[in-house]
């Protein structure tokens, strides 16, 4: 589903502090599976996720998504693909303070022009699935860490993407919440979604919900 060939990514190109975060990655990711990227901080695993998730473009190399080369696409088109096909769960949850849980969840639907009623309906459904109905209209800063994460998950699902990308999803969770999250992960695969995540939490990478673990160090793959 996603093929990466000889991917390199530089920051501050041409400047004295030039830095190559990724240094020649070749990788094929399968649809419908959960893949975890494991590596120390600064290894380049998050950068890899941003490339796969159309958040940024490689400096060189090719990214193919469903057979189509997307590495040369301008931001405008990458955004379109990202909006339709990828849902993001961030480490810091990245919810917008001051807005209710519901408002946060329907935000990714705004650029699509779907009517508000429709967005609210599918958001309510997601809240029900995540057992969060009672917090629909609560401001996000009043929610607990676990609830915030579930709001972030609902937001990632609102546009019904095929791929879920989660960056260190369990970093801010205790063990119980972490197990809960893994259960939700399994429901994703049951629904046929592809999941890509980064983690160095053994609870995650050694879990049965994860089908494949990819190691990264210094911008290169280590072993499968």
């Amino acid at each position: 589903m996603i093929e990466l060939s000889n991917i390199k990514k530089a920051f501050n190109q041409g400047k004295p502090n030039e830095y190559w975060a990724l240094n020649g990655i070749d990788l094929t990711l399968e649809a419908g599976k959960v893949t975890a990227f494991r590596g120390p901080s600064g290894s380049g695993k998050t950068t890899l996720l941003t490339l796969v998730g159309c958040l940024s473009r490689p400096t060189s190399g090719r990214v193919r998504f469903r057979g189509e080369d997307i590495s040369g696409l301008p931001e405008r088109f990458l955004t379109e693909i990202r909006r339709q096909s990828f849902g993001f769960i961030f480490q810091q949850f990245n919810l917008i303070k001051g807005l209710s849980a519901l408002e946060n969840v329907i935000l990714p639907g705004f650029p699509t022009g779907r009517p508000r009623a429709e967005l609210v309906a599918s958001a309510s459904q997601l809240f029900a699935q995540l057992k969060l109905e009672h917090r629909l209209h609560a401001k996000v800063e009043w929610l607990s860490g676990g609830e915030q994460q579930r709001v972030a998950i609902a937001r990632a699902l609102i546009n019904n993407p095929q791929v879920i990308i989660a960056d260190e999803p369990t970093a801010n969770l205790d063990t119980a919440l972490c197990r809960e999250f893994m259960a939700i992960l399994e429901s994703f695969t049951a629904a046929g979604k592809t999941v890509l995540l980064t983690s160095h939490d053994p609870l995650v990478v050694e879990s049965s919900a994860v089908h494949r673990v990819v190691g990264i160090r210094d911008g290169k793959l280590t072993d499968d």
Partner: protein
Amino acid sequence: MPNLASPWLEKQRHLIDFTLASLGRRKTKNLGLLVAYALLVFVLASLALFTNALRTEATFVLAGSPEVILQRMVAGRHDLIPPGYLDKIGRIRGVQKKEGRLWGYYYDPVVNANYTFMARPAEEVASGTIMVGATLARARGLAAGNVISFRSYSGKLFAFKVASVLSPDSELLSADLVLVSEADFRAFFEYPAGHYTDIALSVANPLEVRNIAAKLAEALPDSRPILREEVLRTYQSVFDWREGIVLTVLSGAILAFVILAWEKASGLSAEEKREIGILKAIGWETGDVIRMKLWEGLLISLTAFLLGFVGAYIHVFHFGAPIFEPVLKGWAVLYPRFTLVPAVDGLQIATLFFFTVFPYTAAVLVPIWRAAITDPDAVMR
């Protein structure tokens, strides 16, 4: 087309929704800008509404004055019309009426002001009585039936009974006016018999006015015809010019506002930057963010414009524009007090728009773009 247009519309509604919510969340930050913005609109709109009202007032007042006034010149200076001069004009086609006028200025040491004395036919103002302008009446505490005496330039004392106070409707021009009978006028100023101050001619067809003026100048080479349309034009340009001057003075304020708007728009807080980063990460396009921010600017502009304009309207038409009155109004010592006739016109609103919304938008355009191009992967770093 409609099935294509409606998601677009829906999207704009979403963007407005989001903008309203985010404006609400940052009340204090936006309030300062809104106040400055509304204040600028208020000042400029007051200026525009006030000068426009004065212009309307002048047009209204001049509508009743004669089309042509003929003055006699001696050595390049305005002189009296000698006896028989009126008849020399003869019959000019198109002139409906011609009459000699008598008027002059009188300095009243009591209130340190000049009055305009004007003679009217005996059937309008009886001998021994006067009619006075409302401002003058106020200054000297006069009412109908009172008696007032003036010391003439030759030192004699004249007593007049106030027959009535002139209607305040056209107070801008009649403020310092004293109407007396012709006999009283000549006696008071010791005006030579048969002489007049100038000649007023009424012309029915406005297109004929210039031809008649040319004929007059030809028949009486020592005369100077003054056309009503020219007076009107002069008034208009004087008001325009004054408005322009005040505007130039205020251009500093506009510039200051532009700098404020630029700074507010470019000085995004860490929180706002994070928000835009999140929006971009979850699928908002750069163009979406720009559009959202433009909606924000438009909403702020409309609110400020409405607040400022309504404020200015109340300021000018209910309180008589106390801020601009001294700069823009008359040149006489006696300030007329008059209610301005409410008048708003499209040209002024359009001009106002160019002095407020346009600079604001121009100032925030680049900062908005800069904010909108935040890296979508910034939130993951």
